[in-house]
């Protein structure tokens, strides 16, 4: 399964949205779209760490790395190519 699809599935499953038809593109800011709570944020970070075998350092914990499917994918790529 390709990376963006995996990430999209995870977000679809875990993000709390207010509208059944809420759809988001890979570039949409998910923090603006649904509502992100502490538990989701923590799950998202753990998901990235555990499923892609990377360590999210404190300096990587920036909203720009996590606020859209594209940005999460780019972040994972930048970490795995090191």
């Amino acid at each position, binding site marked *: 399964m390709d990376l963006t699809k995996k990430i999209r599935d995870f977000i679809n499953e875990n993000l*709390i949205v*207010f509208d*059944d038809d809420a759809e988001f593109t890979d570039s949409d800011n998910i923090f603006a779209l649904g509502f*992100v*709570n*502490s538990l989701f944020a923590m799950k998202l970070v753990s998901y990235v760490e555990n499923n892609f075998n990377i360590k999210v350092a404190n300096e990587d*914990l*920036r909203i720009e790395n996590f606020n859209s499917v594209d940005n999460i994918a780019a972040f994972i790529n930048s970490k795995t190519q090191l």
Partner: protein
Amino acid sequence: MTDYYNFKNIKCVIWDLDNTIWNGVLTEDISVSLKDGIAHIIKTLDSRGILNSVCSRNEYEDAVKKLKDFGIYEYFLYPQINWGNKSESVKRIAELLNISIDSILFIDDQQYELDEVKSIHPGINCLNASDYKLLPELPCVNPRFITEDSARRRQMYIDDDNRKKDEESYSGPKGKFLQSLNMQLCIKKAEEKDLRRLEELTIRTHQLNTTGRTYDYDELLGIINSDKYILLAAELNDIYGSYGKIGLVLLERKQQEIKIKLFILSCRVMNRGIGTIILNEIVKAAREASMGLSAEFVHTDRNKIMYVTLKFANFIEADTSDEEDIVILYNDLSVVNNNPPHINIITEKEWI
């Protein structure tokens, strides 16, 4: 046995049944009798805000019926009555209550059971049932204050359980369910009557906690009487009832800057988006007052979730800090979010 006096604060007591709560073994003798004074002990703990649960190898329905006959069934949250390992049952209770193992006291008459649970959960506190009469006097079940919230604690867990059940059976989007709760978040300057509960929050809360510093009543009283500090208390209510005072923010005023010295939220509201909302309200207030905003953070083994919450609320870590262990994060106030539609927020106009 002297160990009992060194136990740390207990949030939940888990009781065995046979030869612990009652005399005899239910599967052998249906006419078991309650041990002397046991109902009183359970009710006393309950009134102090200490939860009670059950972990027993028995036939579920027979045991529940007995507890109901004795008039004490309602005092137990998530009773685990089955034929499995007790360590498993204890783990389930800890997960359902969302408390850590080291805040649990397990009582059983069988040394084997105490050892089995202890071998899997080394952090747990164990008490042999033969010593049960000592229990009410032990420091670990005597919190310094009995607050309005502690006396209602069992009820709050029951409310929460009802919410969870309804949430699971709700078929629409999660957000719609949250909207149906009609949540109301009230953020206000703390008053003297709130301080006991706020002290309790600093002691009991470890995950959503920026520094892990504890403050007692007298220190908090000094804080609310000082111009240097602003102490905020957050309360959450919904159609199921009140979550009580679930959050605390301690702000320090320093010339043109406000520093978040402490931010605590009860883990019961972890998935409600409250942390982000409160931080957003602080950002708004700082902007209106034309003040800078920063936050202190001390990493502990449990509070990463709070660090993530701050980072995702646009707090950025500074390169240097005056003190070791303390991390300083700055918020440049460039991002003010719209609050989510599911919570009605009530704040005082002028905080700062």
